[in-house]
């Protein structure tokens, strides 16, 4: 307790050369994670980064912590084993839209359902990068890629409603162009007890460049996104004069000062309210700006690994520690002289 470790960013930088494409959004995410970790007051050796396969999944090699680069889609399963076996570790799952939502979709929903106390960072660039540019489960319909020359006909996943449907107890969204916000979200995710899911809009400069451009460039971003904060009214727009209200059980975009609307009429974000979280998760369907920030943060839900260890402790408290000899000689035995 006494020794609060103090770290600099370089303490979390491994000796391996980073091999993402120049201009890749992953660099900014890596840097933000490394910076966020310096401020958590947690010992370096207690961090474990676990990834699947894909560009984002090279991440653990670049972190000077414990780490596993696993197989495609399975990071949540390995992470579940790491955390269940040793709850004292801070476990981070690094995944992408292909790794997490396609081949690893099953593990993703189940780790979230169990609510292990782990952090999931999903780099969403809406494309397969490492296999050189096929459409992913988050690609928009119509996207022309090598495997969809006439345009993708797949309906994309919306990660937020999917994950909330799987009972995610924490959901945040951030952008690779906003390092300060990323660090805030990573810190929030670390502090949340339970599975924390952070979706990061990440740009693939080679195969899907500028896919999130409308949410990131100065000219449009204030009108296309809304930064939600707990307890704050939902205001956005360049002039900070637009907002979201609830009318007839539907959200609606309004302009403050028009039709008698005042700031007091706006919906106030309550990140513990699953109704609001789901409303924000479906922003696209309601024609709302894309929300970023903490969409949902459930209050104190039990974590899987705590349950595992408390059951064990309860049995040992009641029966005492197991004794193999006693077990062997328990029940019916016969002795032959």
């Amino acid at each position, binding site marked *: 307790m006494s020794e609060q470790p103090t770290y600099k960013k370089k303490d979390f930088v491994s000796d391996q050369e980073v091999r993402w494409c120049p201009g890749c959004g992953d660099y900014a995410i890596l840097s933000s994670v490394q910076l966020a970790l310096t401020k958590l007051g947690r010992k370096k050796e207690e961090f474990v980064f676990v990834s699947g396969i894909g560009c984002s999944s090279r991440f653990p090699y670049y972190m000077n912590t*414990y780490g596993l680069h696993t*197989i495609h889609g399975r990071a949540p399963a390995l992470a579940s084993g790491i955390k269940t076996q040793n709850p004292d*570790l801070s476990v981070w799952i690094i995944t992408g839209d292909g790794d997490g939502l396609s081949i690893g979709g099953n*593990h993703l929903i189940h780790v979230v359902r169990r609510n292990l106390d782990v952090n999931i960072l999903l780099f969403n660039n809406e494309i397969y990068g490492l296999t050189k540019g096929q459409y992913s489960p988050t690609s928009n319909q119509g996207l022309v890629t090598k495997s969809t020359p006439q345009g993708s006909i797949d309906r994309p996943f919306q990660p937020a409603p999917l994950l909330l449907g799987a009972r995610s107890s924490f959901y945040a969204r951030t952008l690779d162009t906003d390092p300060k916000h990323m660090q805030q979200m990573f810190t929030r995710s670390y502090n949340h007890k339970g599975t924390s899911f952070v979706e990061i809009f990440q740009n693939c400069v080679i195969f899907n460049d500028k896919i999130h451009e409308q949410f990131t460039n100065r000219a449009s971003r204030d009108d296309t996104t809304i930064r939600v904060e707990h307890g704050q009214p939902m205001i956005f727009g360049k002039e900070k004069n637009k907002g979201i209200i609830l009318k007839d059980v539907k959200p609606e975009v309004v302009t403050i000062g028009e039709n008698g609307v005042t700031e007091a009429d706006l919906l106030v974000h309550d990140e513990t309210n699953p109704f609001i979280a789901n409303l924000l998760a479906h922003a696209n369907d309601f024609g709302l700006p894309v929300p970023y920030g903490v969409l949902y943060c459930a209050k104190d839900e039990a974590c899987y690994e705590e349950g595992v260890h408390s059951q064990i402790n309860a049995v040992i408290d009641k029966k005492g520690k197991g004794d*193999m000899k006693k077990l062997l000689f328990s029940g019916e035995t016969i002795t032959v002289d």
Partner: protein
Amino acid sequence: MQELDSVIVRFAGDSGDGMQLAGTQFSNTSAIMGNDISTFPDFPAEIRAPRGTEAGVSGFQVHIGAKEIHTPGDAPYILVAMNPAAFKVNLKDLEQGGILIANTDEFTDKNLEKLDMTGTVLDSPMVEPYKVVRAAITSQTVEALKELDLDNKSKERCKNFYALGLIYYMLHREIDPTLKWIREKFAGKDTLIQANETALKAGFNFGDTIEESVSRFKIPAAKIQPGTYKQINGNTATAWGFIQAAQTSGRELFLGSYPITPASDILHELSKRKDFNVKTFQAEDEIAGICTSIGAAFSGALAITSTSGPGMALKGEAMGLAMMYELPLVIINVQRGGPSTGLPTKTEQSDLMQAFYGRNGESPVAIVAASRPADCFHMAYEASRLALEHMTPVILLTDGYIANGAEPWRLPDLDKDYSTINTTVVKDGDYNDKEFLAYERNAETYARPWALPGTPGLEHRLGGLEKKSGTGNISYDPANHEAMCFERRDKILKMQNSIPELELEGEDSGDVLVVSWGGTYGAVTQAVSKLQKEGKKISLAHLRYINPFPKNFESTLKNFKKILVPELNLGQLVNIMNAEFRCDAHGINKVQGLPFKISELVEAFNKELN
């Protein structure tokens, strides 16, 4: 009264008739009375197939003896047929002159017609070779329970105890152990206790009243090696072997698993053992089962995953990952009839090739196989020891036959025989004067250090990409890749130094060497020993360590004129041996979802001896 040195009883009925329970009670009682025993449950994959159909027949065969018993036996001497379907399916197996106990209540015209038989079947030439005991088991049970406040259906459900009581009378069994079991099982439900006890006694008394027409036999206690014995099945023994390995090595046991027949009982058993700090994780699928275990191994657990053939197929990629990580992991495959979904409740040995080669790339893992139910304890312990000491995945092969079969187990001296497993766990202080290299190999075993997350200064990354020898960093260098393939292969070969040499049963040279592996041991050893007594020059090499093979295996093969390899597959070990040793071994193969009979092996061996 006749004294027998062994007898085989088969209980057969509908899958809802409680035959597994009757068989288990009979074998437990016999074990308590000092007999050696071996059991073989044989049940359909459906939980409740349509009543009265051949598909729904569930059987439980028990072989008890006043001598050493190695198998559940070839042909039953007593067959209990609770209905005509059980009669139809099982009669052909009954020994000539054996006893058929038929539940006449079920032999109605209607039931028989459904099975293309007629009302006179119990008087037909079909049953002439046997002694038939007619017993109105269902109606007599209901009659005996008429005073009890239970509905008719519940009364009928006690008929397995009535049948059991009759067998207890005929074979001079004590009824107390079963009475005790009934009281414990139905504690708090007095009517059910009374009902089952009454049914058991009624069956016993029925035997007594028809004494004239029913033979009674005595099977004295077996003269077996002194010690304390406990009746155990293979899956329980497997689970306990892992717990012992965890206790010995000081690592906590972690099982990641997905339910699958016939392996699920390992998950059930370990889930009960929380007092041993065992963690069980019922995963969302087979892949997550092994992946959670690999994660737990990284965290420092003795990590295992249990499954059967189809699950092995799904776990293949992750096994390759564990092999690349060089982390300890035991994968248990309780083999069942394949391919695909195959025969889930039947036994087979057809996953050996899969264990050897079922992964992409050059991906060697260690393979061991248990030979009988109680041996599962030893081989689970050994699989763990090898995984931990050599830092590698180990596949433990058992099968449905030994997993569900039970036998008395001479309880081992844990302090003497199961007390040392070393791990390669390293601490931060170990590297004060040298650099930590994640893939620095122990010169003798090629095992790498096991540095657990949480240890300061030993932070490292593992991955499935090829790694540089020593450091473990990513390397695409062609020569390094080849060198690493050799290192991983040699690591498995070096295990030969820590596994026992093969011991032959019989002379170390001769006409025929039988090479078997895994769960066929009981039948094979009996067949070989029978021929040895006849003066034949035949010996047995039974393998429990399969990859690597014991050091002296190849040289042993050279001392025999012929090599025969009986397997419950179309020829897997035999092909591996011929590829590896060019030894011209011949396969004796059976793929019926059933174990070998001793008689069929004797015949097959004899053919080659003459």
